[in-house]
């Protein structure tokens, strides 16, 4: 079933999100100056903000085309529990937009002179964090389905909810770059968020879809 969702999405633009991420990340040194110390300091925050925006950009399309052509209605009427379908769609969305960011992270490390350990920490943090972004964002995408200016509204609704992920996601990278504290606690918290999001978000998204499709 998931493969099907994937197959449906296959042709849509994965690369756009990826390049968006790279461009945003590359813009910061141009704006903030190319001094090595500053760049190292802002790198985790920049990477995460760019990740948030990139995932946000892609979220708008998560349900939109299905909504427009009526396939979403059909999905709601299948004998499958909706939250499973939602989970499938979100997973597909993450594979196409979240996962690539994990692999592109070393590039950020290069641009911002991050030490190797910090880069691997960032990859791991993104690996845990980006699915949460997709899951939480799905609720917003479902709520703003088919609305005028849905994209901007979506960011207004969802960005505040992304804060904890960003705080710890960026925090762990900083901590690893300075090598001061134990990283275990950060990852436990991020994983906790992931589990929470996995359990609650599909239910909320399913409810939101029912409301929006009406």
């Amino acid at each position, binding site marked *: 079933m998931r493969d099907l969702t994937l197959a449906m999405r296959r042709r849509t633009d994965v690369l756009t999100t990826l390049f968006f991420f790279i461009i945003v990340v590359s813009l910061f040194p141009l704006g903030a100056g190319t001094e090595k110390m500053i760049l190292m300091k802002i790198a985790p925050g920049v990477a995460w903000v760019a990740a948030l925006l990139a995932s946000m950009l892609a979220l708008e399309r998560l349900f939109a085309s299905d909504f427009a052509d009526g396939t979403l209605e059909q999905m709601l009427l299948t004998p499958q529990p909706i939250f499973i379908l939602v989970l499938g769609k979100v997973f597909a969305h993450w594979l196409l937009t979240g996962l690539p960011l994990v692999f592109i992270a070393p590039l950020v490390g290069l641009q911002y002179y991050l030490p190797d350990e910090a880069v691997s920490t960032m990859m791991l943090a993104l690996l845990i964090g980006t699915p949460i972004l997709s899951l939480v964002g799905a*609720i917003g995408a479902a*709520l*703003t389905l088919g*609305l*005028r*200016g*849905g994209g901007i*509204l979506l960011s*207004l*609704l969802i*960005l*505040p*909810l992304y*804060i*904890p992920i960003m*705080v*710890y996601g960026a*925090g762990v990278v900083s*901590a690893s770059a300075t090598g001061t*504290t*134990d990283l275990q*606690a*950060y990852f*436990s*918290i991020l994983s906790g*968020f992931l589990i929470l999001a996995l359990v*609650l978000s599909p239910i*909320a998204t399913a*409810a*939101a879809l029912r*409301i*929006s499709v*009406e």
Partner: protein
Amino acid sequence: MSINWFKYSSPTTFYPLAGKMIPFFGWLTALLTIGGLYWGFFETPDTLSDQKEYYRIIYIHVGAAWMSMWLYIMMAAWALAGLVFQTRLSYMIASAIAPTGAIATFLALWTGAFWGKTSWGTWWDWDPRMTSELILLFLYMGYMALQSAIDDPRRADRAAALLALVGLVCVPIIFWSINCPNPNECAALHQTSKPGGGNMDPNILIAMLVVALAFWMYSFVAVLMRVRNIILERERHTTWVNEMLEDKQ
């Protein structure tokens, strides 16, 4: 004696009831505000630890901050009631609370900025509680934006209600994450909840509580009035509204 609560869950019966309650809460608001502020301005010491007269903004600041959080919880509670019982009135109350909550949040931030400027010498600091309050303002804004973006009132109600609930689940997590960005030092980072520690003059505390209560009563008034407006607007096509309007003319 058992009261049939659901009787009042219909907009038709709630409208006059709300009308009767408004003056009551209105007077309470006036009394408590005057009493609390009088107490705060004249019966309390001139200084709070090292702060001079300007600390008196505390009476508005703290009350507004408390209300901002309490109202969010109330809004989410009514939203939940709406989703569970499918009562239109619950949604109306939830959406009537939002602007008052947003105003309280804004007021808390605003007075906080003035206070901060005089006592810390800065309008804004990325202090955890200020940041949390700012996020709360964003959440209120999101709720109202979503509600107004959807044309169909029923979808708007239900979508915004769901958003309020999602927000309610996320709020503790957000606040907590802002409070201790480094999980290893979380235990050590304990916020003192009163500026100046625990040795505050009891008079200050009393005045603060009375004004906070006044804020609460004010919220009742504002919310009830707004609910009445929403009811009129939503039910403008129904016979009872039209009959009532004709009576008044």
